[in-house]
């Protein structure tokens, strides 16, 4: 990673990349199950009980960081989350965190899709399993991209492609939520590309649990 790349770390120890043009930090990867588990162990909301997480795991099982490879790396990501639950997670993360709007997500994508992927030396101070997960996902994604012949840009490295669909706020046609991203076909079949700048429109985003929908957050410094 170039010297100009600036990261901060969320309360679970996961990196967020500073994007100068956006004036915000953005999660390097979609929110993972480990981050979600920190949230689950900290909040007292009765809705986030064992059964809630069981539903999510049934939709997209958990993989331990050491087990991650190019055939399962999406299992590290938390999916099946509804937008309101993602917003609750953002509030737990702290001041300034939010789900991105469609425009913000596209700005991040535009800033990263022409920048070649680079090796990142994560600091030793990161929790061991977080470092393992970041390293294993990076390896897994590179193998997957090489096999499929897709580009290896920073946006790909951040799993904005070959990752999960991600919730974005996009108020239109009586709906508030849309999805951006590009799925690995082994994870789920959905013909969609973020390159057009339009969001995918799930029919019942606040009711259904879609096994391939996750999210990432922005943080704007106050």
């Amino acid at each position, binding site marked *: 990673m170039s010297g100009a790349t600036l990261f901060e770390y969320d309360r*679970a*120890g996961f990196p967020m990349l500073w994007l100068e043009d956006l004036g915000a930090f953005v999660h390097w990867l979609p929110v993972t199950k*480990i981050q979600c*588990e*920190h949230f*689950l*162990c*900290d909040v*007292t909301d*009765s809705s*986030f*009980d*064992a*059964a809630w*997480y*069981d539903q999510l795991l049934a939709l997209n099982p*958990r993989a*331990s*960081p*050491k*087990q991650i490879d190019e055939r399962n790396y999406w299992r590290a990501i938390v999916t099946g989350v509804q937008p309101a639950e993602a917003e609750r997670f953002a509030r737990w993360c702290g001041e300034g965190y939010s789900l991105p709007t469609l425009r913000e997500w596209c700005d991040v994508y535009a800033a990263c899709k022409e920048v070649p992927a680079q090796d990142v030396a994560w600091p030793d101070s990161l*929790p*061991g*399993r977080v470092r*393992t997960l970041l390293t294993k996902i990076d390896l897994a994604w590179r193998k997957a991209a090489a096999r499929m012949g897709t580009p290896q840009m920073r946006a790909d490295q951040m799993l904005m492609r070959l990752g999960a669909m991600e919730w974005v706020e996009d108020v239109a046609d009586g709906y508030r939520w849309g999805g951006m991203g590009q799925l690995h076909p082994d994870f789920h079949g959905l013909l969609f590309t973020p390159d057009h700048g339009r969001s995918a429109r799930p029919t019942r985003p606040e009711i259904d649990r879609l096994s391939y929908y996750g999210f990432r957050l922005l943080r704007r410094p106050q």
Partner: protein
Amino acid sequence: MARVICPFCCNVHDFSAALICPTFSLEVPETYVREYAQVPPLWLMTVGFPQHGKTTYLAALTLTLESMDRVISGLFLRSLGNGHAVIQAMREQAEEGTRPDPTTAAAGEGDAPIQPLLLQVHQMGELGSRCLVLYDVAGESFVSPEAVGRRVPALKQVNTVWFLVSLFDLEQQTEKRTITDLFNVYLSGMEQLRIDVRGWNLIVVYTKSDRATFPPSLVAYLVSDPLTELARTGEPAQNAPLFSIPEYVQEMRAISGALEDYTRSRVRGGPAFVNMVRAKGMNLVFSLTSALGQSPDGDSRYLGHHALPYRILDPFLWALTLERRPPTRGLRLVLCANPGAATGKGPPVAEIWGRLTDHGEVTTHFLGQKRAASVPGQPPPGSATGRSRQRLIGPILHDCGAEERLLVITDGEILDLDDYRQSPWCDRLLLVTVAEEPGSDWPHSIAWRDGDDIEVLIDGLLRL
């Protein structure tokens, strides 16, 4: 600082709201709590046969320390709690030329807790400032270890023991008891209370040395105490060299070696005693004292001369020198979160918590809940409350220090434990599985069966 180890029940309590020991409803001195960090406690206990000079020694020590401000610049004493009254009585007895009443005011009666004497010694030269938490326990109390365990919860905290023995009285008494007998009584009691004495300091104090027949070199050491002159005149001896604690301690070491030789060769049961103490892994040193410098007249409390203490400070300096308390071990007890579930299944959690508190500060958690269920000094709740939780441990480990050890008791698979394989946690976490199916392949794991001894779990954790 509000969270300190209570001098009465030895649990960690938060005294910010009230200065009352919740276990015994005794008032904890405000100064003890406020100055806990600057004047940390030095836990001491006297053990000895009746009439072997324990109480007299403690009185002489206290009065000697009071006069040490004349030879150690900056030193001063503060008695806390009931210590004021005890020390005042000692002063009056010294004035009257009587020896102290063998029953200390702090001893209590029946099943009441034995209260310690709390005495702050400030600025004791190179040895700093300490608050003596001093328990006067008859050796024979250990014949009923459960009773003494109830009355002196500090037994598990006191890692320095003054073992007071009058060789003269051992020889004179018709029972013909030996020093080994006293140690056996003490050791059996500690073993029944399941208190591990490895690494503890045993300071043998030969009392009433004015009456024992020590070799001339030891007698010469006894009578050449530079502090005796201080007690006689209230002033240091003219042209006396400055009192140097390091030099004094160096001489004490040589004397301890000579006394050990003497014990092995001349004291009945001596070799067995030394061997037994060393075999138990205790640090053993010797000192000799004479609290009064004379013998009372028969059974009378009255003395023919004013009392003059000899080498009274040696056991105290040994305690300060040897007391290298290991840093408090952080232990976490992690339990399954089954809100409202009956606790009949699995190992007895409260008992395990109690045993773990003998070895460190125990914080309790429920799997899937980052916030502690109980803090050190606070017993774990019977069961979790609130919503059901996944068995997750990562967020708990996230907040643990590098030196902490965890005992995790679970009745099912922990969702994220695999994340920590081949990590340092493998050597710091003991997993106890309660379910019927075969135990976990976690590197340190034990499958709990009904009727198992919890010591297996405690030993397993302490070996990590």
